[in-house]
């Protein structure tokens, strides 16, 4: 059970740029495993350096990759 409501929308960004996860991993010099952890929402935190590299490659803003999910109170 996570203690946050942040979703990483990496899937959508990759689709928009027509890139695969493997290509992104190679471009940002990270392992596919780690990017997969990010993509599937299993990551607990992301370093600013990682966010910078991903945004540079995907030509986007950090806000394009991160979204806040609905709270249980607002359902």
């Amino acid at each position, binding site marked *: 059970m996570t203690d946050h409501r942040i979703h990483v929308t990496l899937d959508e960004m990759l689709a928009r740029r027509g890139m695969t996860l493997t290509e992104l991993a190679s471009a940002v010099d990270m392992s596919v495993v*780690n990017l997969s*952890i990010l993509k599937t929402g*299993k990551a*607990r935190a992301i370093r600013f350096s990682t966010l910078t590299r991903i945004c540079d490659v995907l030509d986007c803003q950090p806000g394009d990759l991160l979204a806040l999910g609905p709270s249980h109170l607002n359902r």
Partner: protein
Amino acid sequence: MKKQTRRRDPLGPLDTVTNVLATVLVVVFAIGGVAAIFTDGITFFDVNGPTICIDADGSIGASSDLDTMDREFFGLRDDVTTYPSQTTVCDPSPTFADRALEGLSVIPAFAVFVGFLVFTQRTIRYARRHGLFSTSLAKRIERLGWLLVIGLVGAACIEWLASGLLLHRLVSKESWTRGSFSISLVGIIGACGIISVGRVMARAAYLQEDADATI
């Protein structure tokens, strides 16, 4: 160019020491046990010998001071007084109960030491299989510390009781409570240290999980 630092095995020193001690124990037991069984006159661990002996209070036996000739021989100053050291009482034909009590007055602390060695080796193997930072390893380490504390205290109590009962059997006027009580304070402090390390490792495990899940 950054010099690559050699990563030392954090479990290396403990692993080495426990392996060496375990090997030495096995060899000593093998040689000593075989010699005691097959050679007359050799006892192993001072148990199962022809006689059993136990230290008694110095009030038994010897007089409290030397005579004049002895004082001159040893060159004792006039105002110096002598007191007898502990008297040892021995039974040349012990019963099974006497032998059992003699064993219980010696072996428990050694058993705790061997048990601690075995559990430490098992904990090291577990750490190598499951990683250094896991809550399960932290619990094992804390449990090891508690086992050591309970073992040391328990062994000291058993040895005190056994030596007291044996002394009472050989010297009826001595109470069974007059056994020898000794406990390793360094061991107790060390065991408490192991318990604390286990608790710190439990916190570190959560930190490691966070670090592992940080991309």
